[in-house]
């Protein structure tokens, strides 16, 4: 078997007194959709942040393609091809969709102006519009700040941003939480499309229907540890719920 695309072992992370992760493991193989599930507070978002470089673990190891890595910053995870739709979306409400889309990797004008740091707003707007349209995110205006968008539109912008930039892995932390039935369907289709283009997806969700519909595998976190792994095709709803609540334990640390 080839080395996992992304692997985490024994990740520990505390916030003051709260132990968010107590030796969590995680495995992602190339080209698969993994659902990361667990009860509220199980540590899913914390794990996603650590694997995206947004937080640093207190201890534990991360490997990309079997090579150990340390993500000191978001940029380092990005350069490994990892992008994330955060649960809180991580959008700047006062910036336009394009401003958010290109946040931290702004396009500059060619030539001298660019060397002075002058932004190429037209190009950024154009590419944002393209990406949003491709994903079916409807925006009335490209100039309006994100704060004027509906919750679903904001989520659409965040998803489009991550998917557009991701080279190898996209984390999606409850990407359909604010979406209607139709838009949720669209995001699920998008996840399949992303996988088919060769980018692995980690879907964090509380919706078991969605999980069953789109994932290849399921990993279950409970109280900061991975407690079970399943092939989606062969797992029942009861097993998933049982693993999340602690009724069944398949795996302890390992």
């Amino acid at each position, binding site marked *: 078997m080839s080395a996992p695309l992304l692997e985490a072992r024994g990740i520990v992370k505390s916030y003051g007194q709260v132990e968010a992760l107590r030796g969590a493991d995680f495995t992602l193989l190339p080209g698969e959709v993994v659902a990361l599930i667990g009860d509220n507070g199980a540590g899913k978002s914390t794990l996603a942040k650590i694997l995206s470089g947004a937080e640093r673990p207190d201890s534990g190891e991360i490997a990309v393609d079997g090579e150990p890595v340390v993500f000191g910053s978001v940029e380092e995870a990005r350069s490994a091809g990892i992008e994330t739709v955060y649960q809180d979306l991580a*959008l*700047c409400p*006062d910036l336009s969709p394009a401003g958010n889309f290109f946040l931290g990797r702004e396009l500059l004008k060619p030539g001298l102006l660019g060397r002075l*740091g002058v*932004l190429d707003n037209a190009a950024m707007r154009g590419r944002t519009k393209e990406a949003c349209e491709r994903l079916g995110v409807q925006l009335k205006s490209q100039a309006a700040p994100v704060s004027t968008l509906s919750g679903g539109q904001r989520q659409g912008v965040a998803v489009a941003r991550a998917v557009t930039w991701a080279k190898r892995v996209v984390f999606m932390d409850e990407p359909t939480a604010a979406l209607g039935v139709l838009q949720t369907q669209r995001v699920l289709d998008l996840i399949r499309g992303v996988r088919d283009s060769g980018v692995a997806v980690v879907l964090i969700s509380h919706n078991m229907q969605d999980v069953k519909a789109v994932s290849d595998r399921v990993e279950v976190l409970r109280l900061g540890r991975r407690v079970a792994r399943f092939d989606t095709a062969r797992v029942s709803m009861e097993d998933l719920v049982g693993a999340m609540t602690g009724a069944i334990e398949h795996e302890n640390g390992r």
Partner: protein
Amino acid sequence: MDRVRLRDRQVVWIAAVLALLLLTFSVLRPGSFATSFNLLNLVSDAAILLLLATGMTYVIITAGIDLSVGGVLVFSAVAATKIMETTGSLLLGAASAVLTGLAWGLLNGVLVAKGRIPALIVTLGTLGMSLGGALLLTGGVDLRAPGDLNLGLGLARWLGVPQIAWICAAITAVLALALARTRFGRHTYAIGSNAEAARRGGVAVNRHLIRVYGLAGLLAGLAGYLSLAKYGITGVSAHSTDNLQAIAAVVIGGTSLFGGVGTVVGTVIGVFIPVVLQNGFQILGVRPFWQQVVVGAVLVAAVYVDQWQRGRRDQ
């Protein structure tokens, strides 16, 4: 969409208020208000404050505040005077003022960004330190600027307009463009809008904050040198409300104290409104204390409008 229009409208509104003020005073006292002599007076009164307010605009857009500008201005002027006294070089004086201001600003930035101390407290502290330091260095007695500075740059004109005003206008214009059009400006807005999102977007938030406070300090240092040239003395006790004037100008100009929103153009208008009021009231013979009352009321109104817009947005 709505809010963009509202924001744009706010700059248009205050521009209209300024225009109305200018018009009213010109109509009421055509012989004295709208003379080129008086308008030049207005411009040169506003010029130095404009530098402080432009730096303050950047800082407030990051959702910060800089109370130290007046103290840094005075300290830099004192440092420059000492250097010029010992070296006799105006150029070294200017450089030392700018560098001193920059150093104070960087100190503010480091304490805010790395020390995680609220900007209000940090800059209140450095205000005290810089003002106190200036008093210690001078023994509380104003130092005089070298005559060739006061009579040179202090009086020099290009096309009839004081050189100092040209310098301030040019710097303000460059910084207005930088804020609106460059990556540096974009990151300034992003940090004020949602610092955590900016960090997760890959913006080096701490480094950027240090630069923004450094810029505000640098501008205060330059303002110290220019005010030395203009007034001929260090003015150790004349700048204790500069910070409030600058903040008032920025806020009247439509920049949000909550960060993420604002323009230098608005700030320019916000600088001129109090100056025009003061000048107009003087010419009309209205007691000058009214200016403070009116500016205070405008300030409260500006913040009220901002709050109201935020409230609508966050619903």
